């Protein structure tokens, strides 16, 4: 250690804070000038942390399940009765669905329909929230040879979750459909009208740019549109809901605040947005 006189050391100590404040401005400029560097640092960090969080996820999940089970014991009877009626109703719907499926297949066979290629997928565990305060995203823990690419599509058991924006060696980041930077082409199932679903960082994204004369109806199903070539058609997204201020929003079908396991689908789509530019662009104004 270098020996300095006491006044010199005091002067140096006083200087540290201003110098570091200046350095933080330098960091901001650096992050702005080279966004790739910052993202690489983040994903390297996420790669290091993902296995630890993945290990923690199992006991913490058990703990949460235990708490939920204990809470569930209280209204076991009511839940049972509710499930029985729901099950009966679902059985009715199942027979309808099977009949429709058979009919659909018969009609497609008669039309010589070119079948959609079956997508490949991998399943991954959500280990952390990778959004922070001003973004909505999740971090997935994946194996070393996962083969996940940017721009692939994440779904949970119910519907669309988001798209992969960053991929590391052991982790991947999925930008949720509720993020401020998310713009997704959708189709309103009832009218067949196209629209854009815009994330707001809130729980429910907004619908914009539907054609004149076919406004979204309350409760209407919303599915993805294949217009831009970034999504396959007809993935379930959610249902339309109007706020009290008469703004059309989409209630996502996926349980975005309780994601545990998602499937990452490779539909082999590149679309008009190449995977390298698929990350959020700051100048995409709604």
């Amino acid at each position: 250690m270098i020996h300095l006189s006491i006044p010199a050391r005091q002067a140096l100590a006083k200087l540290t804070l201003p110098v570091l404040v200046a350095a933080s401005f330098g960091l901001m400029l650096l992050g702005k000038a080279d966004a790739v560097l910052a993202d690489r640092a983040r994903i390297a960090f996420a790669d290091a942390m993902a296995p630890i969080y993945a290990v923690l996820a199992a006991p913490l999940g058990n703990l949460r399940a235990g708490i939920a089970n204990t809470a569930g014991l209280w209204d076991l009877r009511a839940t049972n009765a509710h499930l029985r009626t729901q099950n009966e109703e679902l059985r009715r719907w199942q027979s309808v669905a099977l009949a429709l499926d058979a009919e659909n297949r018969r009609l497609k066979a008669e039309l010589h329909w070119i079948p959609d290629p079956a997508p490949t997928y991998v399943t991954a565990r959500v280990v952390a929230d990778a959004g922070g305060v001003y973004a909505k995203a999740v971090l997935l823990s994946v194996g070393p040879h996962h083969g996940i690419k940017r721009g692939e599509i994440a779904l949970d058991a119910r519907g669309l979750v988001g798209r992969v924006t960053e991929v590391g060696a052991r982790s991947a980041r999925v930008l949720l459909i509720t993020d401020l930077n998310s713009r997704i082409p959708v189709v309103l199932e009832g009218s067949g009208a196209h629209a854009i679903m815009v994330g707001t960082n809130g729980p429910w994204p907004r619908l914009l740019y539907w054609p004149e004369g076919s406004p979204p109806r309350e409760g209407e199903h919303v599915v993805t549109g294949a217009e831009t070539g970034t999504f396959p058609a007809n993935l379930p997204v959610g249902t339309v809901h109007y706020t009290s201020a008469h703004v059309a929003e989409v209630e996502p079908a996926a349980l975005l605040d309780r994601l545990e396991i998602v499937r990452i689908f490779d539909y082999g789509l590149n679309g008009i947005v190449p995977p390298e530019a698929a990350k959020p662009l700051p100048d995409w104004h709604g």
Partner: protein
Amino acid sequence: MTSADDQRPGIRPRATLARRLDLAARHAFPASITILLMLLTEAPFGIVDQTSLLPAVALASVWFWSLYRPAAMSPPVVFAIGLLLDLLDWLPIGTGVLALLIVHGIALRSRRTLGRHGFALVWLAFAVVAAGAATLEWAATAVLTWRLVPPGAMLFQAVLSAALYPALAILFARAHRSIANPERA
């Protein structure tokens, strides 16, 4: 750090390896507990809006240790914690660093005045500082990404930081007097 202790007059035990390790651990406690708590807030607990805990923990910790143990929460340490905050929170790099350094600076400046008052005033001062830091982070994020981020998250972060502070302060104060106290090494 131990050289500063050696300057003081008085009798003290021999600086054996165990004692030196003990001293080093006590000096490193504030930074280590901050980083550990920050990493813990990212663990999959499944709490709603869990991400807002991260900046709240970082702010409270930097404020507390800068007030009561500035030697162990030096500007370079604050810088490193800020960088970790930016990386974990996916904030534009530098914004968390700046906010935490300013909080640290304010804590150092107001040490003498706040130290004379009770917990309530320190808490109140922290609430104001945390609100300022949240606003700064929000403004910096808006400027650096060049888009208007909804201010709701900022308000929530400020309120959560203030609400979380007493719990963390109790924990830290205990540690400050016992396991993190270099005098008791």
